[in-house]
């Protein structure tokens, strides 16, 4: 494949600036964005929390507004549209840290800017250095999935999860600076960050030279038009989507209109050879592993596993947790290590094993994302019609707000679903191969060594794809 081209077709440097259109720029520079989106979601999540609260432990999941909107609509939108296309656009409008940020700023709309700087309420402490990475998010996301069997069938479980996230975000916002919760703790944030490196959208600086000469970096320290980057990025310099929460504050604070929202080819950030770490490598593998566990448990033909996950018995549930954790933290990383070891051996170059491991882990991101999209197809196509029901009758109180309360269960396109799943996985594999070949060239400096070293990794990707196909379509 041609160097510098995505799939040998699109230049990696290709960008289309969406903010070149004045109305887009005006919109994103307005303080109503993202506030209006957040307020809408605050309303939506209030209804979700109420449905979870009143739903208790035994209401059927498919007739609960909270469960259906969160686990059918939101999750599917997140995996199929928001992350792959719009990067962390969910973080733009996420209502969960809303209360915490409001308390920090003591302003809903305006900017608290006094004596040349943004003012924040709270203790504004620094997050511990040892936790300034993705490890905590890895553990918390994995731990959250231990209860996945409850979330889709027990409304109260969804309530407790969301309430815990909100409570924790408020507490941490009062103690720590800016979006510490979103950066280091939120279970949903880590994978969004990693997978957003594949996304088609980015916020980036337009002309770095303007920033280099710029004396007062409002994008970092804030000014009267907006807050310094709440995600602690240096907006004029960052090169990956991982931690950009797309809050658009930097578009508001930049005095030179030098920040842009661009369309770009998929996956280019995965090739940014800086800031790669074992925490992100594990995140990539954990996401791949959880996709497998979820499918096997919730959509596979093994009812016993589902019983374990649903905690039909304590011993079964503990077995599920044990297997789930071992698979994701030990078995899958060990399998990948074997292939990485083979890659290093095949390349015959003295590159540290850890570096090879970390680098190649980014090649699994497109395939992991594809696995989640395929899994999501298995959620939305059969079950999407329930959404019409819960929209009209969110609390199952017999309402019929939009006349759809009695819309029957209607699976959509399920006849071609296996083919859609296979197609999705193949597209993911294609991008993963492309990334793996390029990462091989980054990792092993000699072209021949890179060619040899890539082979075992391509083997891992191929075997993973075949296994997923076998799981998904039987």
């Amino acid at each position: 494949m041609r160097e510098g081209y995505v799939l040998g077709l699109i230049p990696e440097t290709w960008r289309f600036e969406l903010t070149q259109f004045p109305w887009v720029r005006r919109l994103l520079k307005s303080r109503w964005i993202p506030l209006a989106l957040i307020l809408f979601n605050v309303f939506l999540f209030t209804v979700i929390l109420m449905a979870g609260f009143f739903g208790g432990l035994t209401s059927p999941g498919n007739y609960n507004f909270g469960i259906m909107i969160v686990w059918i609509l939101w999750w599917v939108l997140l995996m199929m549209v928001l992350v792959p296309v719009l990067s962390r656009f969910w973080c733009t409008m996420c209502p969960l840290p809303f209360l915490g940020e409001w308390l920090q700023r003591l302003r809903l709309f305006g900017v608290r800017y006094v004596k040349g700087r943004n003012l924040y309420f709270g203790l504004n402490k620094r997050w511990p250095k040892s936790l300034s990475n993705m490890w905590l998010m890895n553990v918390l996301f994995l731990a959250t999935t231990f209860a996945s069997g409850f979330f889709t069938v027990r409304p109260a479980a969804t309530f407790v999860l969301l309430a815990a996230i909100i409570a924790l975000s408020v507490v941490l916002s009062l103690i720590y600076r800016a979006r510490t919760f979103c950066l280091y703790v939120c279970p949903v944030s880590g994978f969004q960050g990693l997978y957003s490196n594949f996304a088609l959208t980015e916020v980036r600086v337009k002309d770095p030279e303007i920033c280099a000469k710029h004396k007062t970096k409002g994008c970092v320290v804030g000014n009267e038009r907006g807050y310094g980057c709440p995600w602690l990025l240096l907006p004029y310099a960052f090169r990956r989507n991982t931690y950009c929460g797309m809050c658009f504050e930097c578009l508001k604070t930049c005095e030179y209109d030098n920040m842009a929202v661009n369309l770009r080819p998929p996956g280019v950030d995965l090739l940014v050879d800086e800031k790669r770490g074992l925490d992100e490598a594990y995140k990539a593998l954990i996401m791949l592993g959880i996709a497998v566990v979820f499918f096997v448990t919730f959509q596979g033909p093994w009812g016993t596993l589902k019983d374990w996950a649903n905690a039909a018995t304590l011993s079964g549930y503990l077995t599920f947790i044990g297997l789930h954790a071992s698979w994701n933290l030990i078995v899958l990383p060990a399998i990948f290590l074997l292939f990485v070891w083979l890659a290093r051996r095949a390349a015959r170059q003295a590159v540290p094993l850890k570096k090879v491991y970390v680098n190649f882990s980014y090649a699994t991101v497109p395939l992991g994302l594809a696995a989640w999209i395929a899994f999501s197809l298995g959620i939305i196509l059969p079950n999407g019609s329930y959404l019409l029901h819960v929209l009209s009758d969110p609390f199952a109180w017999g309402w019929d707000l939009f006349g759809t309360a009695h819309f029957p269960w209607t699976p959509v396109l399920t006849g071609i679903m296996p083919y859609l799943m296979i197609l999705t996985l193949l597209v993911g594999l294609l991008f993963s191969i492309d990334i793996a070949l390029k990462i091989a060239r980054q990792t092993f400096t000699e072209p021949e060594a890179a060619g040899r070293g890539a082979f075992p990794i391509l083997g891992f990707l191929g075997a993973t794809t075949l296994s997923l196909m076998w799981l998904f379509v039987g």
Partner: protein
Amino acid sequence: MKKIVILGLIGLVVSLFVVGSYYALFRYRTFPPAADQPVETLDVLYVARDVELSERGAEDPVWRHVPSKTLALAPQVTAIPWGKASVPEVTVAAFHNGERIFFRLQWRDATENRAVGRDTFTDACAVMLPLVEEPQPNTIMMGFLEGANIWTWKAVRDAQVWGRERAASPAPAERPYTDYYYPLEEREVFPIVRESVASAVEDLIARGVGTLTPRAHQRVQGRGLWRNGTWTVLLTRALATHEAEEATLPVGKARAVAFAVWDGAKGDRGARKSITGWVRLRLWPAEVPAGAAGR
């Protein structure tokens, strides 16, 4: 002062979370799902007679006089392997004689498949009767978490019970078969004991996906006949029940029922099948109020 305010806020948030979670988890309201009531109703009239499980029984004039319903079938899509909606509809009629209930299921199927083997699957149909009075809203996703009694007729069993002479493609009766393969084996290696087949219909119970279990006492009989691209399957069981796991069929009341059909030629097997939603099964007493039952 600021620290006190912050600590107070943190305390408030944590308290709200704890109290809220307690109420959500332990003081929950279990509201009855405003479940979609079955759209279709199948009236089961009292007719003081039997039909024999034979070709004659399948064509018995009684079937022309009792109500029947043509029900749309949808693919099963909650467990692997997915269904493919290979059978679009099934026509069901039923009556009872005060002692037994008789069902007749008919559906179009271009081929008669009575054999099983590798990549060869049998035609089949099933009647599902939940073990609770008000089952969860749909037949699959939550439908049998509380248990269901399922009568499964399979063409391959039919051939074993009723003889090969009536089957166009006789079954290799002694070949064991399973849908499940140990992942590291090319084919199933665990020994499978073939039970002696007494009925073409398996009387099963299930409590969730993957829990199909034969009942200790098999009380359902049935027979299927394929002619001119149509299966006609008769099923019958005594109305009276003897065990808790046996679905009740109370005369004078309505209860839920669902139907499923497998087309073996199109790869249907196991979970891969076509299913109906819940149907209201209304068993009329001997004295039917004039004009009460629909046709």
